[in-house]
C-alpha cells in the first residue's frame, strides 16, 4: 500500500459511537441482496428487526423457498410441519407487493401436495423471473414423477437461468425453449422425465442434462441444437438412449463433459456420433466411452479436434480381451486426432481395478517388454497425468512403461487420489 493510505487507515475511522446502525443505512437494493441469501422464512422474519425492515420482505426480488426450514422431512412424519410450511408460503406469495418483479425464484419442496406446489410455481412464474430453480424431489426413489412445468409462455421471456429437478417435461417444454425463452442462457435438467427429443435454443450457452430419464420407446435420437453453446455436460445413467444423442451446430462449444454409466445403454456407434459433434471443444472429459467409439478405423469422417487442449479420460479402454499394448495403440491413434493437445489425464483407464478385490498377485519381478509398436508423436502434448487410487504396482508400472514407449514426448505425472 502507498504510505499515505496506510496512514489513513491507522488514524482514520475514528471510533464512532457504538450505537451507530450502519446496516440500515444501506439502500433497499443492498438489503434485498442480503436477504436474497437468506431462505424465505428467515427473510420474512427480518420484518421484526426494526421499522426500517418492516416491509422490506414485501418487495424483495428474490425468494428462496426451502422446506428444510420448516423441517418437513419424510412423508410419514410431520404433517403439521408441512401445513405450516404451506401456510407460510401461500401467505408470502399472496402478500408480496404485486408491482415488484421477481428476479430469482427458487423452491425446494417434496411433492407433498402437488396442487399447492404447482400453484406456487405458477404464481412465481407470472412475475417473469430471471432465475428459476425448481427442485421437487419425491419421497420414494421409484415414485413416478408427475409434476409438470406450467406453461405460461410469455412469462418466460426474461428467464436467463433455469434449473429443473424431478419434473416431467414434454414437447411443450421443448417448444418453450425454442421460442418462448428468448433470453435463456443457462439450462440445467436434473432427474427429469424428458418426453421430448430436441433441445433447440439460439441463446443457450450452458447446458447440463444430468441423470434424466429418457422415454424408452423414443424413435428419434435426442438432438441438441444450440449454436451459442459453450459448455455441455451430459450425465447418462439409469436410462437408455437407444438412438443416442447428437449435437448439431455447436461450433462454439468450449468445454464438454460426457459421463456414461454403462455402455450398453448408449450404443457405440452413437457414442461416436456424439463425439464427432464435439469437434470444436477445447476441453473434453469422457467417462466410460467405448473404445470402438473412439477409433478412427473406418475413417469415415471422424473429425479432427482442432482446438482440443485438455483431454480427460476416465474408465475408457477397458476391454478385457485386448492387452495393454493394443489399448495403448488405440489411445495413440485417438490422440492423433487432436494435434493441439497439451494435457491428457487418465483415470482408471487401461486396466480395471476393483478396490474391494484384493489382488493377490505376488510378483517377484515384473517383465517390461520392449514395445516395437508405433510411437505416437503429439507435438504439443506436454503432460500426461495418471490418476490412480490403489498401488497395484505391476499394473501401474506396466502402464507407465507402455505410455513412455508409445507416447515418448510428454512428461508423465502420477497422482494418487484418495476417496
Amino acid at each position, binding site marked *: *500500500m*502507498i504510505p*499515505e*493510505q496506510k496512514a*489513513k*487507515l491507522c488514524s*482514520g*475511522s475514528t471510533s*464512532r459511537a*457504538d*450505537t*451507530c*446502525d*450502519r*446496516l*440500515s*443505512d*444501506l*439502500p433497499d*437494493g*443492498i438489503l434485498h*441482496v*442480503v*436477504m*436474497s*441469501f*437468506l431462505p424465505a422464512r*428467515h427473510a*420474512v*422474519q*427480518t*420484518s*421484526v*428487526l*426494526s*421499522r426500517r*425492515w*418492516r*416491509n422490506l420482505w*414485501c418487495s424483495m426480488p428474490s425468494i428462496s423457498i426451502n422446506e428444510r426450514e420448516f423441517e418437513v422431512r419424510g*412423508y*410419514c*412424519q*410431520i*404433517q*403439521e410441519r408441512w*401445513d405450516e410450511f*404451506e*401456510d407460510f408460503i*401461500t*401467505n*408470502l406469495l*399472496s*402478500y408480496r*407487493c*404485486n408491482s415488484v418483479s421477481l428476479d430469482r425464484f427458487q423452491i425446494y419442496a417434496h411433492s407433498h*401436495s402437488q*396442487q*399447492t406446489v404447482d*400453484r406456487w410455481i405458477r404464481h412465481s412464474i407470472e412475475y417473469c423471473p430471471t432465475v428459476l430453480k425448481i427442485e421437487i424431489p419425491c419421497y420414494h426413489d421409484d415414485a413416478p414423477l408427475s409434476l409438470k412445468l406450467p406453461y405460461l409462455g410469455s412469462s418466460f421471456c426474461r428467464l436467463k437461468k433455469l434449473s429443473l429437478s424431478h419434473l416431467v417435461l414434454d414437447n411443450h417444454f421443448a417448444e418453450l425453449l425454442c421460442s418462448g425463452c428468448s433470453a435463456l442462457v443457462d439450462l440445467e435438467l436434473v432427474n427429469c422425465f424428458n418426453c421430448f427429443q430436441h433441445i433447440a435454443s439460439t441463446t443457450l450457452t450452458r447446458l447440463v442434462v444430468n441423470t434424466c430419464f429418457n422415454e424408452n420407446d423414443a424413435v428419434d435420437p435426442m438432438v441438441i441444437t444450440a449454436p451459442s453453446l459453450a459448455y455441455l455436460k451430459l450425465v447418462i445413467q439409469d436410462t437408455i438412449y437407444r438412438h443416442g444423442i447428437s449435437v448439431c451446430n455447436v461450433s462454439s462449444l468450449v468445454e464438454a463433459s460426457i459421463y456414461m454409466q454403462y455402455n450398453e445403454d448408449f450404443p457405440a456407434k452413437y457414442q461416436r456420433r456424439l463425439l464427432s459433434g464435439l469437434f470444436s471443444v477445447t476441453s473434453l472429459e469422457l467417462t466410460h466411452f467405448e473404445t470402438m467409439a473412439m477409433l478412427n478405423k473406418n475413417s469415415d469422417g471422424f473429425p479432427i479436434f482442432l482446438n482440443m487442449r485438455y483431454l480427460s479420460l476416465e474408465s475408457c479402454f477397458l476391454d478385457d480381451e485386448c492387452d495393454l499394448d493394443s489399448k495403448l495403440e488405440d489411445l495413440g491413434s485417438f490422440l492423433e486426432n487432436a494435434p493441439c493437445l497439451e494435457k491428457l489425464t487418465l483415470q482408471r483407464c487401461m486396466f480395471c481395478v476393483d478396490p474391494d478385490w484384493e489382488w493377490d498377485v505376488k510378483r517377484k519381478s515384473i517383465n517390461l517388454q520392449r514395445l516395437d509398436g508405433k510411437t505416437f508423436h503429439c507435438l504439443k502434448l506436454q503432460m500426461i497425468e495418471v490418476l490412480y487410487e490403489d498401488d497395484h504396482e505391476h499394473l501401474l508400472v506396466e502402464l507407465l512403461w507402455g505410455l513412455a514407449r508409445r507416447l515418448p514426448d510428454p512428461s508423465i505425472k502420477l497422482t494418487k487420489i484418495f476417496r
Partner: protein
Amino acid sequence: MSESELAVIKPEALKTYIWLQCFDGSIQQVEEEVAMFCPMICREIVKNGTGSSKNHAIALPERVNPASLSLILDYCRFHQVPGRSNKERKSFDEKFVRIDTERLCELTSAADSLQLKPLVDLTSRALARIIEGKTPEEIRDIFHLPDDLTEEEKLEPLKNINDDPRIRLLNRLYAKKRKELQERQKLKDVQVQDEQKDERSLDELLCFINGDGGSGGGKGAKSKKKNKRRKDHAKIPPKADSEPVNKEGAICVVPRKVDSGNVSRLPCQSPDMQDDVEDPFEDADLDDGLDPAMKEELDRVQSQVSVKLAVSKDGSRGDLWTYSLEQS
C-alpha cells in the same frame, strides 16, 4: 532529464497512476490496472478522462470513505491479476470479509456505489451469514438496530400492505380459525383428562362409521365440500379431536388440529347426515377461506385415517385410539 537520471528511475514509477479523491477531500493515487477493475472508475477514466493528475482526480461518491476505499483497492489489486486459480480467489475472499460488521456494512455501501458487483455479492453474502440463524434480539445487538417496533406490531400477522379486500377477508378467516383452534385446544385439554378408554371393537366402530348413525358417531360424508361447510356451522363443538398419535413414531400420521369442518371423514357413503348440513354441492369455496390447500389436507388426512385403522387391527393400540371423527 538526462539519460543517466532516467536510468536511475525505478520501473514502478513508469506505471500509470490514477488519482482518486474521496468525499472528505483526501486524495490518493493507485495503479491504473487496479483502478480499472472498478466499473465506475473505469467509466470515469474512459469517458471523462479524469484521474490522470492530482488536480483532476476522480471524485468518488459520498459513500466511499477512505477505509473502505483501501479495502476495495486491495480487493481489486488481488483479483485483477489474471493468473490466479479459483481456489486462491475463494480463499482470499473468505479472509477478506472477516472484518467487523460495521466496516463490512460500510464496505458494502462503498462497493455498491462503485458498482463493483462481485464485491457487493461477497459482502452481502457475508452479512447474510451473520444474520442467518440468529434471533432478532441478537441481530439487533450485533448491528445496533433500533428496537422501534411496538410489541403489537411485532406480533401482528403479516399485513397486507396493498389492502386487497380478498386478502383482508382471508386474514379475518384465518383469525377466526385461529380462535377456533384455541378453543378446541382448551376443550381437548379438558377432555383428555376424562377421556374413557375406548372399549369398542373394531367392527363396531366400523359399523357405526359406515352409517349406522346413532349417537356420538362420526358422520360419513359424501364429499369433502360438506366438511368445509361444517366449519361455518360450528354448532357442534367437537369432542374428540384429532390428536397427534405420533407417540411411537411408528405409523406416522399426524392429522393437524383442524377445524370441525375439516375433520377427517372416512370416505364412505352415509345416508345419515345431520340436519344442519346444507346441501353443499354448490358452495363457493372461496368464501370459506378454505382454499384448496385445505382440500389437499383433507385428502391426506382421510387416507391417513384409514391407514391408522388398518394398523390398529391387532388391537394393540387400542388405548391410542384417537380417531378424528366428529361427534355430535
